[in-house]
Structure formats: structure tokens, C-alpha cells
């Protein structure tokens, strides 16, 4: 279980995340939503140890993440950030193989290769695994990076806006894969999303942030609600039910 307790981070004098306390339920997809500058990515970075918190703590299985050994932590929690510019030329398969580093330390065993195969299969990259990343489209590249994180085989997978650069088809594919990872393999996914409808349709729980503060935290059905959303986004967001999904129709809302 991941527990976030009273987390605060300032950049200069400006607080970006202020006193956030959230518990991530295992075996769920939890979406972080909120307007730009709400502190979603910063919060995710602190949970994954990329960034150190000013005050407060993050606990993984009751132990402060700072106390975890880097190599052990990498077997439990993985993170993928938005911008992934690489300085080296890698093929898709080479990149995905890096996901096994916490286990293999660079020397892939047969079992490691199997995880790599599976991850590539999962992300539908089998036909381009020998291609170099710079030959791929933005969406394909993004899928390759997600495949790396899947190969890492951690209980917790944290993704910072993984749907950026992706078209509708691939966005849906990725969300379905994340759903499968949770439902079939019992993973826990924490994801920063901009598109509130993807959050509504695919996540179990939603954490809403605004100006660095926690606004709401609860099951999706409680958050996707016009009153709650008005508080978060300062706009009227009508909600329509469609095949059991709640869709926010905000495109021509009054702002």
C-alpha cells in the first residue's frame, strides 16, 4: 500500500503541492486529475522518489520510500514521465529490455527475455521491435516506453500523462491494457490524466487536485458529478450516461 502523508513541495517560494494526504488503494486504477498547475505531476514525482518532498512522507508498505534501497524500490514501483527524449539510439526491444535492469543488472536471463516478449506483445509492438525509436511516431514511441515499464513488472505503475501524443485508438488501447494489468495481474496503476472522460470511464478512484491542494478523493462515481467538477475546474460540466459510462460534455460549456 502507498500512503501519502502531509506532502508539501515548494519551488522557490511558490508551493506546488501543499499538505496532500492520500492513500492509494492496491489493485485499482487511481487517476490524478485537476487543472494545469494543480501539482499532479509533482505529486507523482515525489511518490516515485524522483523528487524529494519538503515536508511529509510517502510510505510504501509502512516504510518511508526514502529508506528503501533503490534497487528494491525499482522492483516495486515504476514511473514513466511525460517527456522522454533519448540521447542514445535504441531499438524498441533494447529499450524494453532496460525495464528488466532491476532484476538482471544488464545480463538478461531467459526469464527476463520472456518478460520482455510479453511486454512487447502487450503493447502490440511485436512487428516493430527491431526498429529504432527515432524511426517511430510519437504514439509508437510512447507505447515502447510503457512496454519498458510493464517489463519492469512492479506492483505499482505510475504514469504521468501517458496519453499525450496519442490518437484516440491508441489512447483507448493503452487504457484497456492498464485495466487488464489491474484486473488480471493485480497491479496498481496511478495515472495523471488530462482527459477527464478517460478518468471517468477507466479509473476506480479519482484524486482531484487544485492549486497544489487535495480537493477530492474518492470512488469515480462520487467525483464525476457536476457539482464536484465545478469546484475543481470552475466550469459547468454536464454529465451524460452512455452505455453505463458517465461522459462529461464540457466542450461548449460556459466558462
Amino acid at each position, binding site marked *: 500500500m502507498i500512503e501519502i502523508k502531509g506532502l508539501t513541495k515548494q519551488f522557490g517560494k511558490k508551493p506546488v503541492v501543499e499538505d496532500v494526504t492520500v492513500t492509494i488503494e492496491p489493485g485499482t486504477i487511481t487517476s490524478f486529475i485537476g487543472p494545469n498547475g494543480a501539482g499532479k505531476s509533482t505529486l507523482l514525482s515525489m511518490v516515485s*522518489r*524522483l523528487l524529494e518532498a519538503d515536508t511529509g512522507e510517502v510510505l510504501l508498505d509502512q516504510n518511508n520510500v526514502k529508506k528503501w534501497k533503490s534497487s528494491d*524500490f525499482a522492483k516495486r514501483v515504476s514511473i514513466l514521465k511525460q517527456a522522454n527524449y*533519448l540521447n542514445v539510439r535504441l531499438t524498441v526491444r533494447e529499450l524494453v529490455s532496460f525495464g528488466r535492469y532491476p532484476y538482471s543488472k*544488464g545480463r538478461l536471463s531467459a526469464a527476463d527475455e520472456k518478460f520482455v516478449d510479453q511486454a512487447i506483445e502487450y503493447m502490440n509492438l511485436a512487428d516493430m521491435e527491431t526498429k529504432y525509436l527515432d524511426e517511430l511516431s510519437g504514439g509508437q514511441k510512447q507505447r515502447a516506453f510503457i512496454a519498458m515499464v510493464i517489463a519492469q513488472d512492479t506492483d505499482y505503475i505510475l504514469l504521468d500523462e501517458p496519453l499525450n501524443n496519442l490518437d484516440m485508438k491508441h489512447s483507448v488501447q493503452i487504457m484497456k491494457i492498464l485495466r487488464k494489468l489491474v484486473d488480471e495481474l493485480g497491479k496498481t496503476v496511478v495515472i495523471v490524466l488530462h482527459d477527464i472522460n478517460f478518468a471517468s470511464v477507466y479509473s476506480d478512484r479519482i484524486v482531484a487536485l487544485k492549486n497544489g491542494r487535495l480537493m477530492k478523493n474518492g470512488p469515480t462515481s462520487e467525483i464525476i458529478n457536476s457539482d464536484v467538477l465545478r469546484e475543481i475546474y470552475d466550469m459547468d460540466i454536464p454529465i451524460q450516461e452512455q452505455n453505463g459510462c458517465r461522459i462529461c460534455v464540457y466542450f461548449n460549456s460556459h466558462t
Partner: protein
Amino acid sequence: MRNSTKLMILAAMAIVFILLYGFYDIKGGFDYAFPKRMLRVTAMIITGIAIAYSTVVFQTITHNRILTPSVMGLDSMYQVVQTLIYFFAGSMSVWVLNKYLNFGAAILAMVIFALILYRFLFRADKHPIYFLLLIGMIIGTLLGSFVTFLQVLIDPVEYLSLQSRLFATFTNVKAELLFISIGILALAFLYGYLIMGKLDVMSLGRENAMNLGINYDGMVMRILILSSVLIATSTALVGPITFFGLIVANLSYQYLVTYKHSIHILGASLISIIALVGGNFLVEHIFELRTTLSVIINFVGGIYFIYLLLKESRAAG
């Protein structure tokens, strides 16, 4: 062609040049000339490997293929240390006469300088490459002027002694430093063997490397120290060769297609040996010492540097 084949070709070329340098046109006393030539070749091999190794790892931690430790002014620091020693202690002091003490002081100062540089330039914020190059140039010029200022004040006799230390060449190798250098290089490779896998992961960038369980900031510190020690070693042996690391590292990236540091360090080292031994062979026997290797290296290196800058700016823009 496979990478192993390419490495074999490079190794074969290096051996050919070493043999050529050792045996070509050896007149008169073989017993006199041969050991002398071997001493020089050993110095070239050590320097070549140290520069190649330090540049490849430095470029990995800075995520940049144009910056080298010397472009950032690291080897000017060697001159500063030596000049300061002569200025304050004089040529007859223990700091000069004891070669090991002198060497140690130079290495320590360069490591500290590198750490300070890193702290201010690479940690705080992401600066564009031109800014970093500009800073490097300014630091280089600043240190250079500072050194000149001190040198003007030094007693002329002392200055001559200092100069022979700052403009060391392959023809004037200090044999006693050769053994420490071999020792340092051996230790550096032992350490390199342990961190090779981590280096590969670090080339994915800070966040990806941390995700995969690398203690990134700690590793950067250690690699920076490694890189400074190597540069200090080569500078103390033969003096500064500004563009050399840049050329050999980038040639290796172009020639050998892989992300593996083990292969690039090996490749860049072999290319260095070929360039240094082959280049010296040409200078001594073909040009008959009418030019020096550092002139050729800085000329070719400068052109290659401009080419790389243009290429990078096109890729960025």
C-alpha cells in the same frame, strides 16, 4: 558489419601503428632508441585511453555529445594548480620536487573544480548547450588570464621550469609518472567494469535511470570524479589536448552502433591510440617534425567541432 569485427579492425590498426612507431627506420643504436620509443608509445596509449574513457563517461552524465571535460575548462585547472605551486612555493619546494605530491595536488584540485562546475551548471536548471559552451569558454579564458598574470610575476628562471611542465609533450615523458598513471588507469577500469551496466541505464536520462533503481545523483558524482582523475592523469603526462576526446568519442558513436558503454569505451580508446600513435608517426617520420601533433589535432578537431555544433543545432531546431 558486426561491432566485434569493427573492434578487431581498430585493434589491428592500433597494433600496426604501434609496431611501425616502434621499429620504423630504427638506425644506429637499437638498444638506445627502442626503449625510448616504447616509453613514448606507452605514454600515448595511456593518454589515449584516459581521454577516451573520461570523455565517453562525461558525455553520458551530461547527456551531451559536444561537451568534454576539457571544453569545460577542466584541463586549464591543471595549469592553474601548477602555476600557483610555482608562484607560492617555488620550483625547489617539495610540491614540485615530489612528483607524487604534485600529481596528487593537481588531481585533487581538478576533482574539486569539476564538482563545483557540475553543481552550478548541471544541477540547478537545464541550460541550453550554447550557454554551457559559453560558460566553458569564459572559464577557460578566465583561468588562462589568471595563469598568465601569475606567470608574468614569477622569476624568469622559475618560469622556464614551469613552462616545461605545462607544455609537456610525448617526446618529454616523465617516466616516473608513467607507473602511477598505469596504476590509476587499472583502478579506473576495475571500477568501470563494476558500473558499466549502470552507465548504460544512465544514458536513458535521470528520471528513467532513477525509475530503474539507479542512485542517479550519487553515480553522477562518482563518475565526475572518475572523469576528472582520468583527465588529470593524461594532462599531467603529456599536457592538454583540447579537442581530442571530443573527436574520438564522437567517431566511436558514429562507427559503432550500440548503446553499450563497454563497446564505446573500448572503441574510443582504440581510435585514440590509432590517432595518437599514428599521428605521432606521421609527424616524426613523414613531416619530419615540421609540425606538432597538437596543431594537427586542434585543426582537425576544431573543424569537426563546428560540424557537430551545426548538426546538433539542426537536430534541436
